[in-house]
């Protein structure tokens, strides 16, 4: 019997369908729930403290309002930690897990293009992380910001949500390539996200242009908090490229690395260790 080869879009959709459930109910989701539940728990604690008339956060003796605390959480927890860490753990695992579990052979023997496997899995990663991270941000926002301040701050929340979605997409794309190309993708991913990116942002020069964080921070609508020596240095050498420049580079990274990742998957011979 001759099986007809499935189209790229239909094949990606099928892989997405299969991978979303697998991703959502894997052990990695427990880690994601803990990572994303942290800010929600913190927001509840801040809310309780504020309800007793105390201030949860003070800067130079001045009380920081609900939206200010939300801005700090977006910077410190979501942009600096949650988005890169989810990108690293999920992005690098898209292909690496199949190789490690020795199930990649079954996928590659299906009558679908190899690239569609990666694209389907990448879309499942996007759906999975968007569905967990964005509602969490929404809950944190409504816990921290008094309803009376919603009209004046809601525009910033939309920018934050868009930025986090773009961040997840770009980091996911970059680490999908890392996962497809390198043998120890998790280590390389962690070094890139928490070594290279942090260091280059804190030193003067144009090296920071080879990071994702540089363009992400250029789009954040909140003021950058100073929480330590690294932040102070990063703040000192911070440049603010125009929004369109940031967006153009982020989309270029996304498209470029996703293309490279599919090319690698199409061409690479994965040797399964016995």
């Amino acid at each position, binding site marked *: 019997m001759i099986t007809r080869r499935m189209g790229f879009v239909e094949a990606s959709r099928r892989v997405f*369908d299969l991978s*979303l*459930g697998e991703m*959502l*109910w894997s052990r990695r989701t427990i880690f994601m729930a803990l990572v994303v539940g942290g800010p929600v728990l913190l927001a509840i604690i801040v809310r309780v403290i504020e309800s007793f008339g105390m*201030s949860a956060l003070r800067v*130079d*003796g*001045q*009380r920081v*309002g*609900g939206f200010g605390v939300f801005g700090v959480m977006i910077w410190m927890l979501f942009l600096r930690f949650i988005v890169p860490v989810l990108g690293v753990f999920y992005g690098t695992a898209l292909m690496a897990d199949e190789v490690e579990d020795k199930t990649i052979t079954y996928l590659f023997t299906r009558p679908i293009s190899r690239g569609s496997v990666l694209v389907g899995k990448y879309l499942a990663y996007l*759906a999975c992380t968007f*569905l*967990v991270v*964005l*509602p969490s941000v*929404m*809950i944190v*926002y*409504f816990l921290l910001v*008094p*309803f*009376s*301040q*919603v*009209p*004046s701050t*809601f*525009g910033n*929340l*939309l920018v934050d949500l868009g930025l986090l979605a773009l961040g997840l997409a770009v980091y996911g794309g970059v680490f999908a390539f890392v996962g497809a190309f390198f043998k120890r993708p998790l280590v390389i991913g962690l070094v890139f996200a928490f070594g290279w990116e942090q260091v280059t942002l804190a030193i003067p020069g144009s090296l920071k242009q080879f990071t994702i964080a540089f363009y992400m921070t250029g789009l954040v609508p909140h*003021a950058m908090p100073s929480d330590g020596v690294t932040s102070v240095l990063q703040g000192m050498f911070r440049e603010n490229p125009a929004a369109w420049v940031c967006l153009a580079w982020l989309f270029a990274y996304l498209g470029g690395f996703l293309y490279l990742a599919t090319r690698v998957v199409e061409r690479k011979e994965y040797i399964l260790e016995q």
Partner: protein
Amino acid sequence: MSNRKTRYFVAIMGTVLAVGLGTGLVASYMGLPVSVFSSAAGPDELQYVPADAAVVAYANVRDVMNSHLRQRFKSLEPSQDSRNEFEEKTGLDLEQDVDSVVAAVMPKDGMANNPAGSFLILARARYQASRLEALALEHGAQVTEYQGKRLITHADPDLNDPTPDNMALGFLEADLVGFGSIESVKAAIDARASNRNIVSNNDMMKLVNEIENANAWAVGKFDAIASKAGIPAEIASAMPAISWFSAAGHINGGVSGTFKAEAKDEATAKNLRDLMGGFLAMAKMQAGNKPGMQQLADSLAISGDGNTVALSFAISSEMIDLLEAVAKGRQGQIRQ
């Protein structure tokens, strides 16, 4: 999504996101009154402030009177005689009976010549209406009614005055009086009755709602006041183009406060920030190593981005101790 568990998860998370986005969009773009789900939309007295008010100010008199700072400087206050005389006549103890005061300015043509005609003061206090009425009648005032509220009116005796100060005191609620020109007090009663008051002015209420932890504050539309206040053209042209401003302070053991202004454009805001930064640097230089003044200058901070400029300060009770010691030291030197 063949798995039922996955479908449920996607539906629940999607709903959380959709409800949040929907609520925010409705609140932001469809004019949902900000007070719907919030008790923090300013004091209840705002319902008597006409919607065209350009400046609104509030002071929690009770909080300020009970503050550690006020208790500390109580001994420095002038003699009680004049206060006792006022209390005897009106039955109102300013220290014990007044809870809060709201003041509003409704800019009108000719405001520069007759500022009293544009003001409205709302005071929440425990007062004796009959005693106040009797006192007013003794001094030639008249008692009338407007929309079921009792008004004590006093006509300006100067009949040749083109802008007469016809003032009124209205008993708006059992513990709330309105004071101002007759037009202002009537406008306050109408504002409450028709529900067309400052609470429905979203631009103003955004500023009110941004104020947190303050027992005295003021917000306003700067250009509306500047255009009616009769400021000479030379000065007006040199003034920075500010559209909105807000000032908030908290008095307890120390004093902290923030002044925020929204400029017409980013360039003006940047110039203002630079100018204030220059003044701040000069103040820090002047303070030198004088302990009290140096700490005071250090507590000043300029912030803001885009169109906004903000200046905040915090004077702690320790800093007041220091300033008090410096002042006492100086007094001692003068006496010697």
